[in-house]
C-alpha cells in the first residue's frame, strides 16, 4: 500500500508530560482516516507533528513519501491543512485571505480562489472582512484555504466544528467526494463521532498520547458489541425466567440486557420463552453499540 502518512515511534514530550507516546501511523493514499480522542489525548500534537510545526522528541514522520524535517521541510505544495480553530487575517476579506494563501502556495492559477470560494459556499461573503464572519463561515474559510491548491492530502483538525447541520453534511459530502472522486487522502480528527463513523474508511483512537485502537470501518461494525434489550411489565418475573433458562441477565434502564449470541441471534426463542413463563415482552430489540459508546468504553469514559 502506498502511504500518504507514516510515523514511526512518534513521541512528543513536554517535560515530564508525554503528549504523544510512540505512535505508529500508516495511512494509505485515498483513505479517509478518522482520528478520535478525548480532549488532551494528543490529537492536535500529532497533527502538528505531521505538519512539521513541532519536532518529535523521538521518532520520525513521513508525509507523501517525504521526510518532515526541521526548517519546515515537507511536501507542503501537496498538503492542505487546518489546525485547531480556523484563523484568518481579520482586516482582509475572504478573497484577500485566500489570495494571500494562493501566492504563498506559489499557485499560478488566478481562478483557484474564485473556484474554492464557490465550492465552499462563500460567494456571498467573498468581499466581507474575515473579522466579521460567523464561526461557521470562518470554518469554511479555513477549509477553503486547505483545499485551495487541490492537495493530494488534507489534514484537518475538527473540520465540522462550528458548522450548522446542513454545513456538516455538505462538508462530509465534499470530503467524501474528494477521496472517492479524486483519490485525495483525508486525515481528520473529530469529536463528532458520528461524523467520523459515517465518513472514515479507517479509524484510529488515541488515548493519553497512545494509539490504543486502529480499525477498518468493516472491523468497526464487527467489533461493536450487540445486545438484546428486553422490556416487560413484570421485569423481575422475566428475569427469573431467563436466569432459569441459563441466560446471563444484566440490568439495564427499565430493561433487561442479554449479550449472549444465542439470545441476539434468536430473539424469537427468547420471546417464546418469556411468553411461556407468563411474562411476555412488551419490547424486544437487538441493539448495536454506536461508535460513541464503543469509544467511551475503550477510553474508560462514562457512557
Amino acid at each position, binding site marked *: 500500500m502506498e502511504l500518504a502518512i507514516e510515523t514511526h515511534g512518534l513521541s512528543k514530550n*513536554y517535560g515530564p508530560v508525554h503528549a504523544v507516546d510512540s505512535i505508529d501511523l500508516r495511512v494509505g493514499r485515498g483513505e479517509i482516516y478518522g482520528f478520535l480522542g478525548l480532549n488532551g489525548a494528543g490529537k492536535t*500534537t500529532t497533527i*502538528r507533528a505531521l*505538519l*512539521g*510545526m*513541532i*519536532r518529535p522528541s523521538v521518532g520520525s514522520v513521513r508525509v507523501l513519501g517525504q521526510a518532515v524535517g*526541521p*526548517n*519546515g521541510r*515537507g511536501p*507542503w*505544495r501537496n*498538503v492542505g*491543512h487546518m*489546525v*485547531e*480553530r480556523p*484563523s*484568518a*487575517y*481579520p*482586516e*482582509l476579506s475572504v478573497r*484577500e485571505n485566500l*489570495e*494571500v*494563501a494562493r*501566492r*504563498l*502556495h*506559489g499557485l499560478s492559477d488566478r481562478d483557484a480562489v474564485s473556484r474554492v470560494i464557490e465550492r465552499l459556499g462563500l460567494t456571498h461573503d467573498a468581499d466581507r472582512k474575515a473579522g466579521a464572519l460567523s464561526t461557521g463561515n470562518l470554518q469554511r474559510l479555513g477549509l477553503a*484555504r486547505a483545499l485551495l491548491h487541490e492537495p493530494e492530502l488534507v489534514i484537518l483538525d475538527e473540520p465540522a466544528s462550528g458548522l450548522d447541520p446542513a454545513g456538516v453534511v455538505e462538508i462530509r459530502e465534499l470530503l467524501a467526494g474528494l477521496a472517492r472522486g479524486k483519490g485525495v487522502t483525508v486525515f481528520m480528527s473529530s469529536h463528532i463521532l458520528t461524523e467520523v463513523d459515517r465518513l472514515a474508511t479507517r479509524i484510529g483512537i488515541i488515548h493519553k498520547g497512545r494509539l490504543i485502537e486502529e480499525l477498518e470501518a468493516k472491523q468497526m461494525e464487527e467489533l461493536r458489541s450487540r445486545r438484546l434489550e428486553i422490556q416487560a411489565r413484570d421485569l423481575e418475573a422475566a428475569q427469573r425466567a431467563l436466569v432459569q433458562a441459563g441466560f446471563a441477565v444484566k440490568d439495564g434502564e427499565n430493561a433487561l440486557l442479554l449479550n449472549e449470541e444465542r439470545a441476539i441471534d434468536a430473539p424469537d426463542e427468547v420471546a417464546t420463552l418469556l411468553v411461556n413463563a407468563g411474562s411476555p415482552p412488551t419490547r424486544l430489540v437487538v441493539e448495536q453499540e454506536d461508535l460513541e459508546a464503543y469509544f467511551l468504553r475503550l477510553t474508560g469514559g462514562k457512557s
Partner: protein
Amino acid sequence: MNAFFAALWAEALKAYRSRVIGLSVAVATILPLVDGMFMLILKNPDRAKQMGLIGAKAQLVAGTATWPNFYYVLVMTGIAAAILFDFLAMWTFGREFSDHTVKELLALPTPRGTIVAAKFVLLAVWTQALALWIFGLGLVIGNAVDIPGGSAHLNLISFGIFMSVAFLNLLLVPWVGYIASLGRGYLPSMSWIIFTLASAQLLQVMGWGEWYPWAVPALVATIAGPQGGSIGVHSLVVVLVACVTGLAATFAWWRSADQAR
C-alpha cells in the same frame, strides 16, 4: 525570488489593510508639527509667556527659533520615531500570534525564512519611508513658520544625521521581532521596548551609552545639537552586532522552534 515577492506582497497587503499604517503616518505627522509649533511659539516670546507651561517647555528644549534649533528638535524626535519603529515591528510579528495566523505560515511551499525576510524588508521600507515623511514634512513646516538661519548645507547635514538616526533605529528593530516571536504576542515585546528605553537612558547617564546599542541613536542625534560631537566606530559596531544577532535569532526561532500553540 518569486516566493519572496509573494511573501512581501502578502505582508504589504496585511499592513495596507490594517489601521496600523494610518496610525503610524498620524504619529509621524505629529512629530514635525509639534516641532513647528515650538518654533512658532519661540518666534513670539510674549505669546509664549501667555501660554504658560507649553511656552516654558518650548524654550527649555529649543531656546530660540532658528533652523539649527528646529533641526535639533526634529532629530531628537527621532527617539520618538524609534518607539514608533519598535511598535511596528511588534505588530508585524506579534499579530501572527495574537490572531493565531502563525500556524497558516508554517507548512507552506514558501519557506519560513522567506516570510521572516519579507517582514523585515517591509519594516525597513515602512520605517524609512516614515522617516522621510517626518523630515520632508518638517522642511515644509519650517518654511511655513518662516524661521531664520537656514541654508542648503544645513539642510543636507541635518538630513544626513536624521536619516542616520532613523537607520540606526531600524537596525535595532530585529530584536523586537525576535521577542514578539519568542513571547508569541505583543506583551513581551512591549516590555522589551520599555526595557531598552529605560536601560539606554540609565547607561547613557552612567557614561556607558556609546557601548550600548540602544543608546547609540540618541548619541548620534546629539551631533545635531548646539555642542555637536562625534560618534566612535565601536558604537556603530555594537549596533551592527545587535542587528545581526537579532536577525539571526528571529530566523532561527521561526525555522526551528516548536509551534505548539
